[in-house]
């Protein structure tokens, strides 16, 4: 839920990166963290297992600048992608203002993408949201790998409502900021619409 504080003149929004295990959600956040000026970001918090798999969530606050005198701060979260962490995923979606679905473009991960997308719709609905009415962006990640499904085929399969689709290689940052900008813009536009 967007939180607007008139005393400190701040707008705070929550964006969640969703997707199957090992699709690159944490890598997206890590790239944003590494490429952002220190004064614009807080710490990157990772609640991860010993093998660096996300256990609960990753979190980083990002300040984008001011709109009409209000500081805009985006709280970026990832969910754990592994199927059995569903309870944690539900919790992290609470109060969400915008969602990025990070799809793994590799052929063998297609079923995992579909399952995770279905899980996203279901968990959003548990929290009282509808994917069709929430700021949402689809990212097709890992486009640099050899065994990827063609973009139009992936888009046909995964696009839900004409949302913006971005190709990405999160490890080198390609498409990462385009994705973030697209979802942040939708969140702020939604705020304006009321």
């Amino acid at each position: 839920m967007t939180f607007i504080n008139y005393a400190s003149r701040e707008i705070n929004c929550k964006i969640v990166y969703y997707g199957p295990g090992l699709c690159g959600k944490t890598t997206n956040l890590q790239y944003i963290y590494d490429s952002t000026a220190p004064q614009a970001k807080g710490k990157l918090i990772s609640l991860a297992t010993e093998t660096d798999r996300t256990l609960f969530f990753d979190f980083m606050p990002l300040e984008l600048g001011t709109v009409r005198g209000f500081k805009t701060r985006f709280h970026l979260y990832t969910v754990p992608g592994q199927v059995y962490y569903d309870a944690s995923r539900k919790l992290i979606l609470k109060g969400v203002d915008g969602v990025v679905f990070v799809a793994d473009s590799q052929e063998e991960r297609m079923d995992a993408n579909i399952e995770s997308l279905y899980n996203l719709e279901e968990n959003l609905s548990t929290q009282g949201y509808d994917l069709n009415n929430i700021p949402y962006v689809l990212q097709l990640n890992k486009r640099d790998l050899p065994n990827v499904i063609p973009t139009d085929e992936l888009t046909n399969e995964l696009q839900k409502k004409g949302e913006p689709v971005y190709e990405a290689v999160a490890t080198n940052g390609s498409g990462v900021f385009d994705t973030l900008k697209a979802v942040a813009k939708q969140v702020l536009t939604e705020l304006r619409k009321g």
Partner: protein
Amino acid sequence: MADTPFILQEHQFHKLKTVLERLRVECAARVVFLIDRDGQPIAFNGEIGAMDTTSFASLAAGNVAATSSMAKLIGEDTFPSVFHEGERESIFISIIGRALLVVVFDERSTLSLVKIRTKRGSFEVAAILDEATEDSAAFRVNQNSFFTEITDEDIDSLFS
């Protein structure tokens, strides 16, 4: 659609700060935070030193979300409070509707004192937050010039 924004107006923010200040003194605490259950820091009073308050808020909300879900799994509706005891510093978290009241205290205070004082302060905090929630919708309808005045250029300028 995402939730309606929660708008905290200046006078409500200052009322909350006053309650937190009094609560910190009464609890003999190091710092008292008010945090939205979604992890957004709302206000605090006390010594924070170099503490990263944004991360602290996010983790406190995650902590409460996890323990509340654990409560449901064992047949409890929720745990209305959570306590973490450290060697020097301890944390007491009390759930007040949409918010969390978090008291960080050391050996100068005790858990029982913090619990008693927090309970009383909770009612005041809840009343102010209820008022802010009710006002949020009306405030947007009546005085939403700030929102409608945001232009595409304003939004684009954030990413330039």
